[in-house]
């Protein structure tokens, strides 16, 4: 497929940007770095749109089905004739959609940052990191090889580490960066072992081959992986669950979500890019990528479903109690991703069963726009107020009209109010869940209500509530470069729902007929509206109702406010258990036992030599005596031995 070969540029352009800006940016063009980065990204965004167009509407489809195309493939590291790490690019609905999302949102963020990060003395470094991240994310979505995905997976992790720790002088930022990296690293361990298991049994690392082998019940590989088992669970399940753990780590699923809220220490545009639109959905992407295999293993799908559902609920509850606006957004992200996860979990393959898959992808798509929009809006707000806390805000609508409108759109979208983008995707999800799993459906429904509530709680407390008490200086809402992305994304949030994802990105590549069922979709919308009204009632104007409710809730509220103490538990586990009970003893053992023995041996020799020095007494007669005894002893010994 040589005509696609230009897509190599899509990831490589940002890489070039990273190299140039990283090496020379700081010294030579610190000011113009933003422009350069943005232009480079503009190029790859344009290319990905072009790719999408060409793939979806020109030649992607063969007899009604979207086929997988592999335009690029280079053998990178060959372990053995059939196990080898290849580098390349794959084109299928999934990857193309992700391409568009990633490059587009990234472009928006680049533009937004032009204004937001203006005047930073590490401006170039910032853009270098952004480009690095974009490169790795694009590489990730294009991966043709499970190991390639792992590599970019790690790269994404590290670039997020760098970006979160961008304000390296803030200890909180550094801590957050470390936390994010280590937690995801821990999850990646699962991913790695999963890869080892799958690749060992499938005898390949290549996605296409792997999927084809593990989904064909006749193939020897399928037999080996399903027959081999550990603790009574088949290797297939092990492999998939471990891989899912990797995804859960990146996508902040319970219990690996703890890093996400803290990650908000990073610059806000970064949160918009990484922790809303792109990196956090990598987990979903991974599961979707291996979906054909997952379908064959219900145990794994079961895990996916319930983890997803629980995370969605938990996050929503916590979000209601947070006061830091970015944290609220973070938890809402987690909750939405939970949606995508269990949507995948309840889905089947092909035809109507594939609805969940489609819905999940659809939600991923729409969510990317409105969530990044929310973050950028929040960024604009913070830029103005210089604070993350709701308490310092309120009544900002007259200072920042554009932000206000776009933010409202986004909130409506996420709350699932028609005709905004969120409505369609969420509706599909609920539909799919309803057919598959009633319990999860209820959770989802309740969660959507909560979502609407906390989003509007956020909205009202920022833009309404009390009169803003801004101290005299600048009351503009930032530069043009900050407004434009807001507007663009706002329109996307408005319209993205009408993109015919159902006909493009489906579990089996075939078109999927969807129909809006008014009666069905009434319920979620009602839930949403209910949440909105509640928020309106509580937070429209300043009053003490929230406080009362909080008091009524009492412990539960506190728990939610404290994020159910999960951080503390982790802290206990790491600090107390790992460090004190394992690390310290290991160090002590090394210092005192292993090394001690060796030093003791040396010391012992010295002591012995001190002890025996007496025989060299300086008395010549004693010497003669030893001499004589030596002779007698030797001869006696050997006469005894030889006779």
């Amino acid at each position: 497929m040589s005509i696609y070969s230009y897509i190599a540029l899509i990831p490589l352009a940002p890489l070039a940007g990273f190299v140039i800006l990283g090496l020379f940016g700081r010294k030579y063009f610190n000011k113009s770095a933003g422009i350069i980065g943005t232009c480079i990204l503009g190029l790859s965004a344009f290319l990905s749109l072009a790719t999408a167009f060409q793939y979806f509407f020109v030649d992607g489809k063969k007899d009604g089905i979207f086929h997988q195309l592999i335009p690029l493939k280079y053998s990178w590291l060959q372990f053995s004739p059939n196990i080898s790490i290849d580098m390349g690019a794959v084109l299928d609905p999934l990857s193309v959609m992700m391409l568009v999302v990633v490059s587009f949102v990234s472009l928006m963020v680049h533009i937004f940052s032009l204004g937001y990060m203006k005047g930073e003395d590490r401006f170039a470094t910032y853009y270098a990191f952004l480009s690095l991240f974009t490169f790795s994310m694009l590489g990730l979505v294009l991966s043709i090889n499970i190991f390639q995905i792992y590599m970019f997976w790690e790269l994404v992790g590290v670039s997020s580490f760098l970006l979160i720790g961008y304000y390296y002088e803030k200890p909180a930022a550094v801590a957050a960066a470390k936390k994010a990296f280590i937690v995801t690293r821990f999850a990646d361990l699962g991913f790695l072992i999963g890869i080892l298991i799958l690749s060992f049994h499938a005898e390949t690392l290549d996605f296409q081959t792997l999927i084809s082998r593990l989904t064909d019940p006749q193939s020897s590989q399928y037999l080996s992986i399903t027959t081999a088992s550990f603790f009574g669970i088949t290797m297939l399940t092990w492999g998939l669950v471990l891989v899912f753990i990797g995804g859960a780590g990146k996508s902040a699923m319970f219990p690996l979500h703890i890093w996400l809220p803290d990650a908000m220490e990073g610059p806000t545009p970064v949160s918009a890019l990484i922790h809303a639109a792109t990196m956090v959905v990598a987990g979903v992407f991974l599961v979707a990528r291996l979906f054909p295999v997952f379908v064959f293993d219900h145990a794994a799908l079961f895990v996916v479903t319930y983890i997803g559902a629980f995370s969605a609920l938990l996050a929503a509850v916590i979000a209601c109690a947070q006061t830091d606006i970015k944290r609220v957004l973070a938890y809402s992200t987690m909750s939405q991703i939970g949606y995508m996860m269990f949507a995948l979990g309840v889905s089947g393959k092909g035809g109507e069963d594939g609805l969940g898959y489609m819905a999940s992808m659809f939600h991923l798509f729409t969510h990317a726009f409105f969530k990044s929009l929310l973050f950028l809006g929040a960024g604009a707000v913070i830029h103005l107020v210089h604070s993350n806390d709701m308490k310092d805000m309120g009544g900002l609508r007259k200072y920042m009209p554009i932000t206000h409108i776009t933010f409202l759109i986004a909130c409506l979208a996420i709350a699932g109010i028609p005709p905004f983008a969120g409505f369609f995707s969420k509706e599909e999800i609920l539909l799919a869940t309803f057919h598959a799993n009633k319990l999860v459906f209820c959770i989802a429904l309740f969660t959507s209500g909560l979502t609407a509530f906390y989003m509007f709680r956020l909205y009202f407390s920022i833009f309404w509530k009390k009169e803003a008490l801004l101290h005299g200086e600048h009351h503009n809402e930032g530069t043009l470069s900050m407004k434009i992305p807001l507007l663009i994304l706002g329109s996307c949030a408005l319209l993205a729902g009408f993109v015919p994802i159902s006909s493009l990105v489906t579990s089996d590549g075939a078109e999927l007929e969807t129909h809006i069922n008014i009666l069905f979709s009434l319920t979620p919308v009602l839930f949403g509206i209910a949440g909105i009204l509640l928020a309106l009632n509580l937070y429209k104007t300043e009053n003490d109702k929230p406080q009362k409710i909080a008091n009524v809730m009492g412990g539960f509220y506190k728990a939610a406010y404290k994020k159910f103490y999960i951080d503390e538990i982790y802290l206990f586990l790491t600090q107390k258990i790992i460090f004190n009970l394992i690390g310290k003893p290991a160090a002590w053992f090394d210092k005192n036992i292993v090394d001690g023995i060796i030093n003791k041996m040396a010391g012992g020799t010295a002591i012995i030599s001190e002890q025996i020095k007496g025989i060299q007494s300086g008395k010549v007669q004693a010497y003669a005596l030893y001499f004589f005894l030596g002779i007698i002893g030797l001869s006696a010994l050997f006469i005894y031995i030889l006779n």
Partner: protein
Amino acid sequence: MILNDFFILMKQELMLLLIIFILLILKVGKDRSNESLLHLINALLFLNLISGFIMPAEGMLFGNMFKTNALITLEKNILNIGVLLISMQSYSWLKNHKHLSEFYILMLSTLLGMFYMISSGNLLMFYLGLELSTIPLSAMANFDLEKRASSEAAMKLIISSAFSSGLLLFGISLVYGITGSLNFTEITPYLTAGPLQIFAFVLLIAGFSFKISVAPFHFWTADVYEGSPVAVTSYLSVISKGAVLFVFVSVLYTLFKPLAELWYNILFLLSVLTILIGNLFAIRQNNFKRFLAFSSIAQVGFILIGISGSSQMGTASVIYFVLIYIFSNLGAFGVVSLVSALTGNENISDYKGFYKTNPMLSWVLTIALFSLAGVPPTAGFFGKFFLLIAGAAQGNYILITIAALNMVVSFYYYLRIVRSIFMDSNEQPMVKLYIPWMPKLALFICLAGIVVIGLWGTIYEYIFSLSTGF
């Protein structure tokens, strides 16, 4: 023509006699300044060394009382080299010694004794050579006439050597009683592993072991080395030890061939004991000479392992090692003797910060010590390696392992000195020493030997080709 080959075969001994008489005549004649005398003597010794290499001959005289061949000539030459080096090194000490020529007469007569001992084919000649190489030595040990330590050392040497020679003689008498002959060739057939034979044999072994200071017959070594003048100490530790080792090998391999199993086991025990004792004592020493005494004891332990290999490789490795050992040990002793002659310091602790003031000497000393420790690329590495390989040929890997691990201990104490030379700080290190050209030359020769003998494989090949199998 007997007289002719008498002159050819005994040329080295005759050369020594000649020098001794020259010295006597010079002594009775008008006395010269020590410097000129020293130069003359060293020239003579050099001639003596050269003469050793010309007209190598093979044969025996006086009914196998004296025999010589290429190997024996080589051994004597090695000893000659050592003696020359020692006399050059002790220049600074002898320069202002009253009894210069006597010292040389005694030294050369002991050397003569060793020569006779090496070429002896007869127990009587062997015994005489041994005594000739012992009695004047104990007189030499007393040559620091004013020093208490010196006379104590001499006393210990003469008394314990008298004791050991008494036991040796008792053994010889038993051998004579058993075999009825003193001639090696006639003795060998009669030797069987009967109790009395074993006893006699052990007595003889003890006599040898005393001279090469094998535990538990080594106790005199440290005290004598510490007390005697440095020149004598180095002579003791290198020349007399080397000579006896040469004899030891040939005697074991030829005379006591029938008792091979017996002496293999004895050597096994003795070598382990010797290495252990040597190392354990060397760790703690502060006096440099005493330290070198114990380290040389440990070295002898390694040599015994080589001997126990009981093969042509064994002989070759021992001779090769002795050659290397002469250069390395004299490298170390050369520096020590210079320092003690010029400053009177003999303690290791005095060498702290030595490198600051005397880098040249420090490097010589360090390299010599490395060679003793057996660190490549110095020759000592090759010497030790071949000794142990020769020992391993018997397949006794316990012995080899013990030895190899003991090498680590020996590293400790050699490195200890290197440490105090280079690393330990010292508020008043030794002064910069002025070194006369002769000792300097000697030191350089030692260095050259240490470097060349190892890396240049031909030397070992030559020795190997000469050495007799088992």
